[in-house]
């Protein structure tokens, strides 16, 4: 076990955003949570003291929900984001000690990146996009064209090299992104949710293709995703992140048979997503929001414009009052009842941090989308039955 070939070693890496970083470090040292630190010092902790090793020729997957800090971690690895503290060793050498020229050289030859929304240059055609890295490091025209063509063939885009990026589908664009990253012949490939913007069928193809390319070229890959199925399919090693910290690093088998805690277990058990996702992940802004002083005519117009049959009523302080249904609004207009009496009060509400599993009984009984309020009873969003159900699939 000791003769592992470690290409990247990350040692107690932290990334904080804000002015008063040293105070924030002290608070973290005392074991305070991320939210509390943000409240007291105004510093956002994106990544908190994480360490891991990446083995040469393997795929290392970082998985976490949005806001868990995984994108920040991957941007520290090529110093697009300088870490606040900690160290990053590439082949045993700290990349934080690189001078300007060494850093450029590192990015040009050792490490390259694939982006979630592709990051392609629309003013260049496919070939010139793929050749970008070679152009930057000063390769001559003939060399970069032949090398770029090789990569274009590798990702199966032969015949498209002269096309504009705008003529390509999403899957094809990401193939260009991968070809561009491979053209430099880097040792490490950083992939920041590369397939998240693609539809599921294309995503499956691309995952398969990545595996076959990786087998062929034997590159080291650091891969970021929020999809546990993708993580287990691709990863030799998987690290789960939550709130800027790594909770568990293991092989997919090891993690499945021996999850570190309930969070990991719930994450893995993708049949039970209701245990991982909370209301804030699925809530939406209400499409029809009216003030209690607005009156029934305005409410009717809003409902008609938005094509919905109920409106959410808030008072002047944006505190949630109740729901006005289409039927009741019509009654008010006909003079049968007063506007304030027509509002259905005491409808079920929930808060952002409630788990979907706990919301299920409420959602099952609810007539309308459930209002989400904060501690001060302000309306922050709504949760529809459809979004509850689709979060479980």
């Amino acid at each position, binding site marked *: 076990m000791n003769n592992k070939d470690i290409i990247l070693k990350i040692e107690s890496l932290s990334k904080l955003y804000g002015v008063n970083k040293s105070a924030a470090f002290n608070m973290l040292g005392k074991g305070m949570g991320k939210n509390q630190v943000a409240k007291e010092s105004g510093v956002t902790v994106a990544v908190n003291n994480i360490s891991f090793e990446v083995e040469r020729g393997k795929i290392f997957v970082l998985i976490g929900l949005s806001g868990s800090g995984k994108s920040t971690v991957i941007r520290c690895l090529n110093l697009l984001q300088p870490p606040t503290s900690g160290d990053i060793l590439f082949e045993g050498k700290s990349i934080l000690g690189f001078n300007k020229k060494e850093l450029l050289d590192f990015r040009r030859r050792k490490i*390259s990146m694939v982006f979630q929304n592709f990051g392609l240059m629309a003013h260049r055609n496919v070939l010139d996009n793929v050749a970008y890295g070679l152009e930057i490091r000063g390769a001559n025209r003939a060399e970069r064209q032949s090398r770029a063509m090789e990569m274009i063939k590798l990702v199966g885009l032969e015949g498209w090299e002269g096309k504009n990026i705008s003529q390509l589908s999403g899957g094809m664009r990401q193939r260009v992104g991968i070809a561009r990253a491979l053209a*430099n012949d880097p040792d490490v490939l950083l992939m920041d949710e590369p397939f998240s913007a693609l539809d599921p069928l294309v995503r499956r193809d691309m995952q398969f293709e990545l595996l076959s390319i990786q087998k062929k070229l034997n590159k080291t890959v650091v891969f970021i995703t929020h999809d546990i199925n993708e993580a287990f399919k691709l990863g030799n090693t998987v690290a789960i992140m939550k709130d800027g910290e790594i909770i568990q690093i293991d092989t997919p088998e090891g993690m499945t048979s021996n999850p570190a805690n309930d969070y990991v277990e719930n994450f893995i058990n993708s049949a039970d997503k209701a245990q991982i996702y909370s209301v804030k992940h699925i809530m939406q802004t209400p499409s029809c929001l009216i003030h209690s002083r607005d009156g029934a005519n305005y409410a009717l117009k809003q409902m008609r414009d938005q094509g919905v049959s109920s409106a959410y009523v808030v008072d002047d302080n944006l505190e949630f009052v109740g729901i006005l249904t289409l039927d009741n609004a019509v009654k008010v207009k006909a003079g049968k009842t007063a506007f304030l009496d027509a509002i259905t009060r005491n409808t079920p509400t929930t808060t952002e941090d409630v788990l979907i599993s706990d919301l299920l009984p409420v959602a099952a009984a609810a007539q309308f989308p459930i209002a989400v309020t904060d501690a001060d009873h302000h309306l922050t969003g709504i949760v529809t039955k459809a979004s509850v159900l689709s979060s479980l699939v």
Partner: protein
Amino acid sequence: MPEWLIEFPSAIQLNIKDAIDNFVHYLVVNWEPFFDGVTKVLRSFLSQIGYVVEIIPWWLLIVLVFLLTWKVGRKLSRALLYSALLFSIGAMGLWSLMNTTLTIVIASVIISILIGFPLGILVSSSNRSNVIMRPILDTMQTMPSFVYLIPAVMLLGLGNVPAVIATTIYAIPPMIRLTSHGIRQVDNEVVEAARAFGSTRWQSLIKVQIPQALPTIMAGVNQTIMMAISMVVTCSMIGATGLGQEVLISINRLETGRGFSAGISIVIIAIIIDRLTQGIVKKGEETNEQ
């Protein structure tokens, strides 16, 4: 009620008139060789542009406008219309005056681009220069354009050279603003990609940011041209020749027809140049769309 609450107290006096007068006077007295040099350089620049404008025969310019309109929009009717409008300027007997006006406008626009484009890049790349430049640009754009005429005359005399300077000051802000805006709005992931592949700042500027910002930068060029054309009549008050002078003369003599002929010619030039440059902007946006 005391009087100072009703009328603004005359005891309070802020005299910036004298300060500005003294400053301009100081420049006139002590910097004369410098402004003479500037005048000389600009005069030869103007005469070279004038030479190029004059050398193009009238029919060639009309054919060029026809071909360009066709290339930009693929509409035969529009190409024919613009050619006919341009022809009508000649038919009104204003062709050579139009050439003079074009010379001043082109010179001002070239100087505006040469200064405004690098300044725009500078403003886009540093927040501090942005903070410094913004109030200056706001002032330049809201200052009544006549005000620029006075120092231009004092420092450079009468004629087309001070007209070019006044026009440049008036027309340069959109060039700076839109260059900066265009570069700032380039998709962050694309800029990140450029950096991730080891581009130096210069490389990512030249190879990624400027090409991606080009449609916006061209919109800046378009606005700069329009503003330069709108200064044509104003500048005739400090002795700029061409169509603007024609308008000024007809105001003095109350010759309505003569004034309108020149005015309509200016409008025609503005429309043709505006549509052509906008067409180019649109084409650029289409290829840049993802």
